[in-house]
């Protein structure tokens, strides 16, 4: 590395003169036009594990940590899935599960929500894809602080352990709903009001601490450890999405941490941060003077950016998948980047749209409705750009592309119902109905999940060196896609007729008579969609040994992660020499080029005569 540094500096002045003078004569040599600034930083010093434990358990390699995050998040996700089955069983066929009491139902709702949002989606996108892809995509050897990165995963591991332990403590897990609103969270009568909520808060605090360690890694790796030639505007949109989501997480999780800490003190020490004067069973409790709305503000100051912490990586990843599999450059790359950054920024000014019915000052609702609707602008830009990228592309209609198309449709769907709910006057009657449930599952449940699935089919050949089975993949996709719509489309209607969310049973209310058939149908669909996810797990286990070998760069993609000397990449990623980047990752079907893709490391002297000669 250092030799090269000196060689290149030798003719730096000369070459920059030639280019800036604009003469562009035929005298320029290949080394002139291929010039890339010398390395600013010495090569990274890595700790190489030798034993099984340092290589696979307490491992400092970001790729292994990424897979660890992925597996653990998937494991918790399966638990969340099983909980949703139990909930749907109760809603569709009340009393069918004999052990199910109202308390159990609330606990399952709460744990399903918290697991899916925080421990599944956030951990999977940022911990899983972030760790695996960021160093590879920006051309780094590893994350910048590998040790901290390892501690990050093990904090997450402990956080999951504490969370799951709450199933086995007296009183069970908390049943206050995933928003954990006080005062009912810590009042007797709410399931898990003692141990359950305590473990939940501890687990969240551990998660935030662990995430902060990982998040610092992702940010500094993107900012300070890119390879030569990799400018911010040459990064794949995946990296932009994960990077911006991490910025949001670093600024939003503090509010959750503070809220969880104060909740713990209210619960354990009897402070009154969130607890007003309350009469319970004819007896005045010790609490007085606290503000439950304060918790809601803290929670949603975290909670709304959290939606985008999940959505932005999905936006980024899907952009790359669409571009690669339609063999076209992503339309409006800069616009996409600024849309991601803009959505991220705006997401900090919309939190109180979750609180229209909380009793806060109505003028707040006016302000927050406005900011909420403004988010539709960058989001719509992104959707148009995806569609224009597809337009006249050379589309490969494989499983990855199917998931991407499914994502676009689902995201538009969930986004439009978001415009309903962003308006105060429409939100008030729809608030706390199944319309809300349908909306957020569409927009931040199913849509990002489709991207995850697409990403798994796309990057599995890199991680495992083999393709996943396409036929199984198509079954998986169609069952999930059609099934998800069978679940959530009817839920919008349930919301319109006023069926409230979080109710254990409708008994003989008028809702029930008109909704009973629909609830049965939704539950059946939910069982099928849930079961369909095991097709993927089966597919992965099966193809790990017997799948079609992928070889290097099987999708003919341009970005750096496919250009490693060995597939799957080894510790240190790049062998002896770091890659040098000459262009963005979206040069597909360039007129005049030999092939339909030009990798990021292809030097300009190799593509003389094509339309991207100058980039």
């Amino acid at each position, binding site marked *: 590395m250092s030799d090269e*540094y000196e060689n290149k500096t030798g003719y730096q002045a000369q070459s920059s003169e030639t280019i800036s003078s604009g003469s562009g004569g035929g005298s320029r040599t290949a080394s002139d036009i291929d010039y890339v600034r010398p*390395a600013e930083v010495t090569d990274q010093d890595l700790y190489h594990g030798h034993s099984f434990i340092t290589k696979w358990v307490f491992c400092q390699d970001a790729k292994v940590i990424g897979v660890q995050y992925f597996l653990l998040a998937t494991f918790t996700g399966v638990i969340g899935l099983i909980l949703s089955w139990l909930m749907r069983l109760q809603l569709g066929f009340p009393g069918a599960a004999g052990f199910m009491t109202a308390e159990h139902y609330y606990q399952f709702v709460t744990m399903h929500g918290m697991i899916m949002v925080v421990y599944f989606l956030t951990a999977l996108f940022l911990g899983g894809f972030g760790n695996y892809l960021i160093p590879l995509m920006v051309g780094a050897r590893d994350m910048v602080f590998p040790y901290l990165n390892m501690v990050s995963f093990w904090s997450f591991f402990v956080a999951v352990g504490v969370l799951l332990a709450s199933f086995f403590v007296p009183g069970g897990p908390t049943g206050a709903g995933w928003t954990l609103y006080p005062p009912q969270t810590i009042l007797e009568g709410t399931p898990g009001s003692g141990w359950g909520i305590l473990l939940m808060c501890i687990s969240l605090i551990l998660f935030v601490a662990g995430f902060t360690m990982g998040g610092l890694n992702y940010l500094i790796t993107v900012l300070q450890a890119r390879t030569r030639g990799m400018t911010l505007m040459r990064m794949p949109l995946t990296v932009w999405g994960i990077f911006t989501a991490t910025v949001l997480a670093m600024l939003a999780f503090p*509010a959750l941490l503070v809220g969880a800490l104060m909740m713990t003190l209210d619960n354990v*020490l009897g402070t*009154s941060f969130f607890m007003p004067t309350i009469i319970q069973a004819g007896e005045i409790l010790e609490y007085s003077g606290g503000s439950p709305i304060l918790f809601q503000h803290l929670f949603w100051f975290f909670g709304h950016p959290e939606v985008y912490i999940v959505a932005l990586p999905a936006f980024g990843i899907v952009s790359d998948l669409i571009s690669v599999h339609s063999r076209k450059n992503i339309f409006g790359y800069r616009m996409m980047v600024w849309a991601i950054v803009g959505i991220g920024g705006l997401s900090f000014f919309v939190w109180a749209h979750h609180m229209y019915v909380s009793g806060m000052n109505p003028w707040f609702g006016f302000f927050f409705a406005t900011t909420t609707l403004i988010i539709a602008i960058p989001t719509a830009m992104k959707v148009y750009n995806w569609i224009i990228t597809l337009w006249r592309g050379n589309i490969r209609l494989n499983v990855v592309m199917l998931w991407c198309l499914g994502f676009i449709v689902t995201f538009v769907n969930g986004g439009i119902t978001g415009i309903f709910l962003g308006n105060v006057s429409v939100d008030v009657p729809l608030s706390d109905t199944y319309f809300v449930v349908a909306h957020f599952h569409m927009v931040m449940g199913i849509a990002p999940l489709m991207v995850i699935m697409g990403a798994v089919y796309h990057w599995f050949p890199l991680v495992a060196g083999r393709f996943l089975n396409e036929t199984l993949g198509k079954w998986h996709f169609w069952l999930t896609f059609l099934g998800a719509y069978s679940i959530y489309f009817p839920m919008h209607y349930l919301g319109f007729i006023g069926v409230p969310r979080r109710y254990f049973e409708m008994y003989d209310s008028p809702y029930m008579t008109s909704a009973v058939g629909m609830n049965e149908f939704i539950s059946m669909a939910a069982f099928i969609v849930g079961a369909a996810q095991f097709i993927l797990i089966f597919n992965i286990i099966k193809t790990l040994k017997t799948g079609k070998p992928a070889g290097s760069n099987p999708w003919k993609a341009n970005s750096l992660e496919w250009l490693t000397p060995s597939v799957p990449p080894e510790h240190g990623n790049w062998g002896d020499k770091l890659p040098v980047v000459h262009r963005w990752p979206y040069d597909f079907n360039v007129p005049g080029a030999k092939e339909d893709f030009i990798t990021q490391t292809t030097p300009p002297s190799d593509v003389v005569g094509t339309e991207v000669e100058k980039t």
Partner: protein
Amino acid sequence: MSDPKIDGLELKPGFKGMADDTGSDQTMFKGVHWGKAMMWIFLLSDTFIFSCFLISYMKGRGSTLVDWPNASEVFGLHVFGVEVPLLLIAIMTFVLITSSGTMALAVKYGYEKNRKMCGWLILATAVGGLIFVGMQAFEWSKLISEGVRPWENPFGAPQFGSFFFMITGFHGTHVSIGVIFLFIYAYKTFAGHYDDRKRGWFTSMKGDYVEIEILGLYWHFVDLVWVFIFAFFYLW
């Protein structure tokens, strides 16, 4: 850890230079050590934590049913038969800010490779931090002996006790963690780990005097946060 090569790197001043750095490859903050950039971003995140605490405090104080106690009476000390308001806290603040000064000097001597001076100044900083934590413990026990608890307060609103113990406790934890690291770094400085570029115990990365500056950033931050806590609790 990888070392930035700042020599031969042309840094342009002002907004133009910032735009150039942002648009360039490899690094956004030219010549900035990875760990230093990390500490800045961590501190930004930590700022949000303390902001959430202090905003909650403002909200809590604004909506209590009972009056907030008078800070100059609650925090006053009875010395030589005279009631002196804010005496203890003035000394604490003075000690903490002085320790920031010794920390800054330690960084300077570190970069000059003056191992002895650097080590002693880090030790002095650590002792300043210890004195601060000790005086805080004294203040806590004084308030507790007067009957102030997280859940009740004989002088007025119970939230006073809740917020006071929580926020000063959270800050005190920051100081204590800083003191532990200061002692470790003082040992490493005296033992020459930074001069010999010895590898870290856990991270196995080569030591460098920049680590002292990174710890210094943390220490100055803890100091700065204290100024805000001081203003909000003792002067409001």
